[in-house]
């Protein structure tokens, strides 16, 4: 079976700065992998290169065997690759439930006219999506706030809502940029449970994360970047013992 995501000697240059330097690795389907590295290692840049927000200068990204060259924005999501952003980007002016439902825009089968005329098919679909969104909000402990303004939630809850929203798009693979940033310990535990549950449903997940206990607790593959280069990739236990990783983080020999 082809891997979910293959990164093949990918580089990204900003002027004189080589932010990503010839990085290659692949992510197996159905896994939960973590991309870690010190500040400035190029983790978010790699996400942006994969999703063509800043397209790669050279190299290739393949998703489920298909090259992503020139595929950006909504087309990625239609292929099944959905990402979240480093800062929470819930939609203001919408309730929590509406935010979750907004994730399912690309799944709407009924057209706008059917929805406007409240045709039975459109209403049935709406009911189904609402049930699904409510169940997910329940899972992450946000159902009590479903009719509150999304921007009224604390930052951690907004980030969890973003994960729910991304999930509503029914992705084959989720790219989550620092989902645990700004979360307190109990919110992080909720998130860990949610991520494991998502993985168990067959969705491939890659997270950029700083929270080591979260990463080591739930990831089954860890990719380490430092200064734009791939340092190591492997199981969490191996990564923890890897001298190069320790060097990158602690900055000296052991």
């Amino acid at each position, binding site marked *: 079976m082809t891997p979910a995501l293959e990164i093949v000697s990918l580089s990204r240059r900003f002027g004189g700065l080589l932010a990503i330097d010839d990085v290659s690795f692949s992510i197996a389907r159905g896994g939960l992998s973590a991309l870690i590295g010190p500040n400035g290692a190029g983790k978010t840049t790699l996400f942006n290169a994969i*999703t063509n*927000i800043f397209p790669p200068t050279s190299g290739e990204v393949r998703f489920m065997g298909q090259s992503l060259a020139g595929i*950006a*924005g*909504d087309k*990625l*999501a*239609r292929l099944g690759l*959905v*990402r*979240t*952003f480093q800062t929470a*980007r819930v*939609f*203001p*002016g*919408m*309730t929590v439930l*509406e935010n979750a*439902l*907004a*994730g*399912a*825009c*690309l799944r*709407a089968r*009924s057209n*706008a006219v059917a*929805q*406007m*005329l*409240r045709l039975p098919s*459109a209403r049935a*679909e*709406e009911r189904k*999506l609402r049930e699904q969104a409510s169940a997910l909000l329940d899972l992450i402990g946000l159902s009590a706030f479903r*009719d509150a*303004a999304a*921007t009224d939630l604390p930052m951690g809850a907004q980030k969890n809502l973003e994960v729910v*929203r*991304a999930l509503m*798009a029914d992705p084959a693979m989720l790219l989550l940029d620092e989902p645990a940033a700004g979360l307190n310990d109990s919110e992080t535990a909720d998130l860990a449970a949610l991520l494991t549950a998502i993985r168990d449903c067959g969705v491939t997940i890659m997270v950029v994360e700083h929270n080591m206990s979260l990463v080591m607790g739930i990831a089954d593959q860890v990719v380490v970047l430092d200064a734009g280069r791939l340092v190591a990739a492997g199981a969490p236990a191996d990564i923890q013992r890897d001298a190069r990783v320790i060097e990158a983080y602690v900055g000296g020999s052991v």
Partner: protein
Amino acid sequence: MLGFLQIVIGGLSQGGVFAAVALGFSLVYRVTGVVNLSQGAFCVLGAMAMYYFQVAWGWPTPLAAAASIVAVVAFGLAVGATTFVPAVATLPISSTLVLTAGLLTFFGGVALIVWGNQPYALPPFSGEAPVSFGQLRVPTQGLWLAGGVAAMIAALWWLVYRTQLGRALQACAENAMAASLMGVDVKRMMLLSFGLAAAIGAASGLLVAPITSLQFDSGDFFTTSGFVAVAIGGMGSFAGAVVGGLLLGVAEQIAAYYVSSLFANTLALLLLLAMLLWRPNGLFAAGPARRVDVRSEVVVHRAPIRLANGRMAGLALALVAVLGVLPLLPLPNGVLPSLTIAMILFISVLGLDVLMGWTGQVSLGQAGFMAIGGYTAAILATNYDWPPLAGVAAGMALSLVCALLLSVVTGRLRGHYLALATLTFGLLVDSLTVGLVDVTGGPSGLVGVPSFGVAGFDFDTPASMYWLALALAAVFVFTLEGGMRSQFGRGLQAVRTDQLAAAALGVNVPRVKLAALCVSAALASLSGSLYAFNFHFLSPEMVATPRSFEMIAMLVLGGEGTLVGGLFGSLVLTLLPTLVQGLAAYKTMAEGALLVASFLYLPEGLFGRFVLWLGRIGAKPANPNGEPAAKAAT
């Protein structure tokens, strides 16, 4: 050849004013990131002050000019400090842009009260006799204008690039947050730029007033011409403002001479649309574009305005019942026709709400689609004996085609440029309705439009027309409400606030924008057709750009993103001048002032505030231990 040179000289002197207005745009844009659409009004205010000081009170010209500039700057600073600067600090850029359109209307309204609606011309500074250079004859006022504009450019250049104050202004332009951390008083700099822009506007206004006569709404013309100039030259570039202004002036004069003066404007606007397609940042946009993207993502806290289904249905039924009974009551004279107008305009405002309130796409050209729908239906029904309904359908079809064409231009544009492209579109339609005399009847309008009728029934009384508009409005609100509460509406709202995040979720952003534009264009077109059938007459100014601004005021006053809200804005702005006859002269000013004030003090609008209030009183019984509920029980 000589004739051509003479035309070019005429164009340069006209272009000098455009350049000065463009300079004001660029200055404020550089410091605040907002295109201040009220810029053109300062020209009129300057000329108006000059008229009183020089002509009415007989002050010597230099003293009168200085006093005029000081007076306009003082007025500009007062208005800027209370409206523009707070708006830049608290509102998203698109709202601030629309707020400045409100200021333009407000200033125009002030001029209307002071000056009335006749045109004024000032005496030339140094006599009527032109100077001759060989065989070329140049009016002396043209030289004054050229010299004045050159002096302003030089002074501005010196101020911005050679003084400490200028460095502070530039710092605000680069990064307002960092500038404030460095101790620059950003708000003061914004106000300063606004005041300087007022001075530039006043000076150019009093310089040009002896050449072109001005009236209360000439500010619209200066704003649009200056805007075309600045968009050609490149927003924020001083050199671009000057080159753009002169180019536009010359191009318009040449077009007026060799083609037709009625089409001079059309050609300039086509030039601009081509420019926006070819080089959206203008000729002189050197260096990286201003990071509008970052600023536009400043998250604005907006409370979702939602009513539970049951309450919504109850409220809607009550509203339709009350509105439906109104014509049967003994109403004061003129109220029923006003109600009909309000209801017809509401259909257009409803479309604007889908586009602006729900999708966040600022449109300053909504009246353009009204004009297309109005003229198409009226011409087909009047001159070709089409059934009115077929005319309406043809108008809507033509509007949708125009919306598709417009989206080709706007699809590549964001923020300001998008709003300004829609303004260009509206102005283009304006110029065509005036220019195509054989088709539209030109400035004097199209007469003899029949009543609207379907299957033998004529809607030829005010009440029948009112009920027709009410029924249509009710049906549209009901269907759109259904769409807004489904995935269609959520797609629109996702695009409204965060296009990047929306796209990451698989929302096809260009398609969503196009859908909203089409809904908006179709409703505006229908509203325009009904408008023509209702009056049995249609003239360009009934569906011109000020109408677009008026409909924005109605929407914002009533409440954006609420669908029904626009009705209240439309009722208030249409009925108030009818009910209080003495207010008619203040209508324009009040429209501008209400738009500005609702942005600043009532951002959710009348209806939005009502719904939020209902939500609060509805929330109380849900909390059995709450104090208010217990008090209510006793």
